[in-house]
């Protein structure tokens, strides 16, 4: 019996998959058969519906006391020339400038700045709510929350309560990296441990907050580490039910402490999405974060277990400082088209996956929106085209 048919049989019998099953899935050579299984599970949950939102990314400071090897964004000290911390007015302006077409969600992720007062973070949230009272604030990763608790000498619950009082609605999933202690020690020694990270989420969930969680894959970890990571998420979810989405994030090597490592390839991305969907029987959504995998692979991922492609984003700097060549934002129409081209039904959602707007399914290749500027499609940073002659010169 092949690995996949064995696993299919277990799923049909309602048997839960274990660690060995997960590792076997990662080793499955037939990528399409693996994808097909993940796709069936995805369609059983969501049919063709594929979620996206109108969101905005803000990174208010890149000053960071942690020195994660995979990071090309932060690890700066406040006096360094590239260090930058936004004033509250600067940060708020990002929203007030967009009020003609406002985001429904603001996603704030920062470096671990040792010198800002806690009130800065509270006031940031209050200011956003003043500008747009119904905006959803998904701010500060569990790693930041844990750091705040240490720095400002409060309990995690206290930190969360004060932030919630200031307007915090949910937590983003960043900072999970890889939970395995040995790997985590090598790549990310001086920030929240796996248990600390998961504890923050546990407490948030117990307060009735929803959160997301992530996994940074494709660096020095093994398949076993990935499975261990996914199963730890599953275990906490059994306990709390508070995770909305699991987001596998591909490691990008440029300009960071692991720049000699190759980035994971697209096949590895798809495999990881698929295995995540198959193993995580209790997390409703698997997200293909298009900034991480690129819009093209994210589009394919919509058949490899993913039902969410993140949002318009507008301005992302963390992946971009690690060499991501994708654009910093995608237009709304563009996201709809990406989803329709994958043969799916685009659903604009709010942060809690309530439907804002549902679009029709287009037949393959007939997206409702025709994006005129194809530069926006493949979205790489603008490079003067050298290619020529239509398709001619690339003929094999």
């Amino acid at each position: 019996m092949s690995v996949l048919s064995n696993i299919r049989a277990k799923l049909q019998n309602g048997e839960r998959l274990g660690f060995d099953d997960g590792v076997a899935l990662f080793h499955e050579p037939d990528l399409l058969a693996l994808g097909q299984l993940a796709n069936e599970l995805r369609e059983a949950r969501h049919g063709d519906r594929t979620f996206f939102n109108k969101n905005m990314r803000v990174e208010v400071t890149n000053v960071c006391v942690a020195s994660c090897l995979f990071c090309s964004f932060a690890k700066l000290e406040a006096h360094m020339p590239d260090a930058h911390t936004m004033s509250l007015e600067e940060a708020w302006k990002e929203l007030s400038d967009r009020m003609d077409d406002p985001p429904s969600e603001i996603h704030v992720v920062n470096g671990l700045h040792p010198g800002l007062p806690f009130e800065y973070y509270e006031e940031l949230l209050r200011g956003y709510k003043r500008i747009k009272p119904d905006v959803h604030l998904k701010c500060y990763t569990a790693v930041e929350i844990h750091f705040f608790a240490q720095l400002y000498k409060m309990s995690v619950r206290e930190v969360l309560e004060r932030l919630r009082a200031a307007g915090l609605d949910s937590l983003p999933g960043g900072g999970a990296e890889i939970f395995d202690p040995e790997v985590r020690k090598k790549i990310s020694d001086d920030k929240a441990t796996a248990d600390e990270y998961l504890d923050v989420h546990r407490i948030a969930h117990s307060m009735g907050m929803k959160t997301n969680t992530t996994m940074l894959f494709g660096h020095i970890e093994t398949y076993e580490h990935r499975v261990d990571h996914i199963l730890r998420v599953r275990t906490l979810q059994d306990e709390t039910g508070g995770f909305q989405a699991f987001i596998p994030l591909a490691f990008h090597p440029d300009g960071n402490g692991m720049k000699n490592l190759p980035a994971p390839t697209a096949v590895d991305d798809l495999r990881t999405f698929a295995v995540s969907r198959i193993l995580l029987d209790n997390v409703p959504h698997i997200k293909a974060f298009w900034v991480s995998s690129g819009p093209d692979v994210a589009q394919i991922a919509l058949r490899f277990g993913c039902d969410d492609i993140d949002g318009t984003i507008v301005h992302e700097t963390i992946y971009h400082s690690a060499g991501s060549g994708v654009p910093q934002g995608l237009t709304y129409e563009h996201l709809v088209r990406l989803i329709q081209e994958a043969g799916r039904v685009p659903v604009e959602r709010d942060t809690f996956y309530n439907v804002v707007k549902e679009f029709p399914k287009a037949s393959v290749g007939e997206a409702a929106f025709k994006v005129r500027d194809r530069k926006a499609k493949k979205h790489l940073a603008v490079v003067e085209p050298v290619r020529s002659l239509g398709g001619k010169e690339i003929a094999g």
Partner: protein
Amino acid sequence: MSAEKQDQLRVAGVRYLNARPLWEDLKSDPRIALSLEIPREVQRMLAEDEADVALMPVAGAATLGDVFFVPNMAIAARGPVQSVLLVSEVPLEKLEEVALDLSSRTSVVLAKLILAHRNIRVRFTDLDPTTARTPQEMREAVAPVVRGTRGAVIIGDPALAIADAFPYRLDLAEAWQEWKGLPFVFAAWCTRNPNFAASDVARLQAAKTAGLALRDALAEEHAAAHSLSPAILARYLHESIRYELGDAEIQGLTAFFDEAYRAGLLPKTEVRFTAPLANRPLTPVPLETLLGRAAAGERLSVAEGERLLAEASLFELGLAADEVRKRKHPHGVVTYIVDRNVNYTNVCTTSCRFCAFYRPVGHPEGYVLSREVLGQKLQEVVDAGGVQILLQGGLNPELPLTWYEDLFRWMKAEYKLGLHALSPEEIIHISELENISTAEVLERLHAAGLDSVPGGGAEILVDRVRRRIAKTKCSSEAWLGVMRTAHRMGLRSSATMMYGTTETARERVLHLAKIRDLQDETGGFTAFFCWDFQYENGVRIEPGDTGTHLYLRQQALARLMLDNVDHIGASWVTQGPDVGQVALRFGADDFGSVMFEENVVSSAGTTFGINAAGMETRIREAGFKSARRNVRYDWLTPPL
């Protein structure tokens, strides 16, 4: 267009003598727009909706798959037909080679079936259809071909005129009758419209009745024009050719389709009729059955390909294509080539609407690369272990054939690199510039060092599309013609498709069928690559169907349709290395080429670049071994 013209029935007839009784009476009918063409063109017109009804060679009908026969009319034979003969100097069982006009598909399939049935194994080679007009000329044209263990299938006038010149002859329709006890149907009126009007059927029937009465006159006229015997021709039209499509003929046609399907020569085909004949209620094959047949490598019709593209899921197409890939390339190796893409000039007279590269003659940004610049580029390729130059350019009216010949000789003398150069459009351009045939251009370039012809500029090989995206581009028939000529002189080429402009899904499948048809004739295509139209600033058409899913589906379908093309390439250069890598699991066994920095193709403003190590990593992670190749897809390195 006048109202009257719109009401005309567009009829495409085969222009040969034996078809004349079916259409002669239509010539003077103002309600009919009659086109008289060779069989291949008749097939094209029906396929591309330029004809409402066409006298289709039955192999062409099977290729399309979605045609309906008009009742009770055909070109058929019960017993000897006289005009399709296998002739030789030795008894059949001694034959080793048979030359025949490989573009005459129905006869080719019939010859293959009959020889296989008689356990005679031969090699089939191409015989140019003769342009000889008198029996003497025909004899001179055919006689040198038929030598020793090499026979030939001769068709039409030559068969009628010179059959007695050879000691051994086999009438293929007679052989069919002996084998099956059934008539053989060569061609019949076909339409793609299942509701073809009863009045139009009646008009064709009336034309047949009138035409049959004209047979003696037609025989005399043709005999006079071609110095043939009127008596032989009259007997041919009265006795050899049968114009009925009765029960026996339908059984014969069904038997032919079944045998050809079993032999892998034609798609599975059912004989279906237009009204007023009642068809059995059509039960479409379940999609799973069709996918199973596709994965098993069976030949698919255009209609079946279209259905797969519309209905099969991404995984179904991918898994079926991967099955075919596995069977064709069981070693699990994906190849790539180290070469360089050089555009020798950007001056071009074509002004394709999708091209942002060309400059008109006299434009200040126009260039022709100097020997010095070229030499530097070539040396870099040699130094980097490259094996080939892909040389293409605009249609520059200031470069004569001798410029290319000198260039090629110099390149071959100075650098040991394969020369993969000049797409069909450029060959046609040079032939027009020099006022010589494309065959002569190719022969001279071949002599000067040309190794193979790139398949660029194919775009979509359907003229409706070509006219819309590039008015002055060569016709699809001209593009295929250059490839036919090149293949016949032993040059190999690739085949390509650029989709996503203004074509329909059906037209993409027709494109694949045309490549498959020509490949049946020549076997000269090494590989197929496709990509979507890459939008850039400055281009003047709207992008159409694009997206990664469509690319993967389209590439997988190409693997399923092109059962006679060895290699399918994943076009990472246009799709990006990520999608390119995933595409390896959708039927591809080649990853294209490692390109050099300044020739890196930018995909819609994107510049992708990967080196050999990057290619090998991606190939390995997709689950394959990698090997470098040359233009003929020979492995140059052991698979790793």
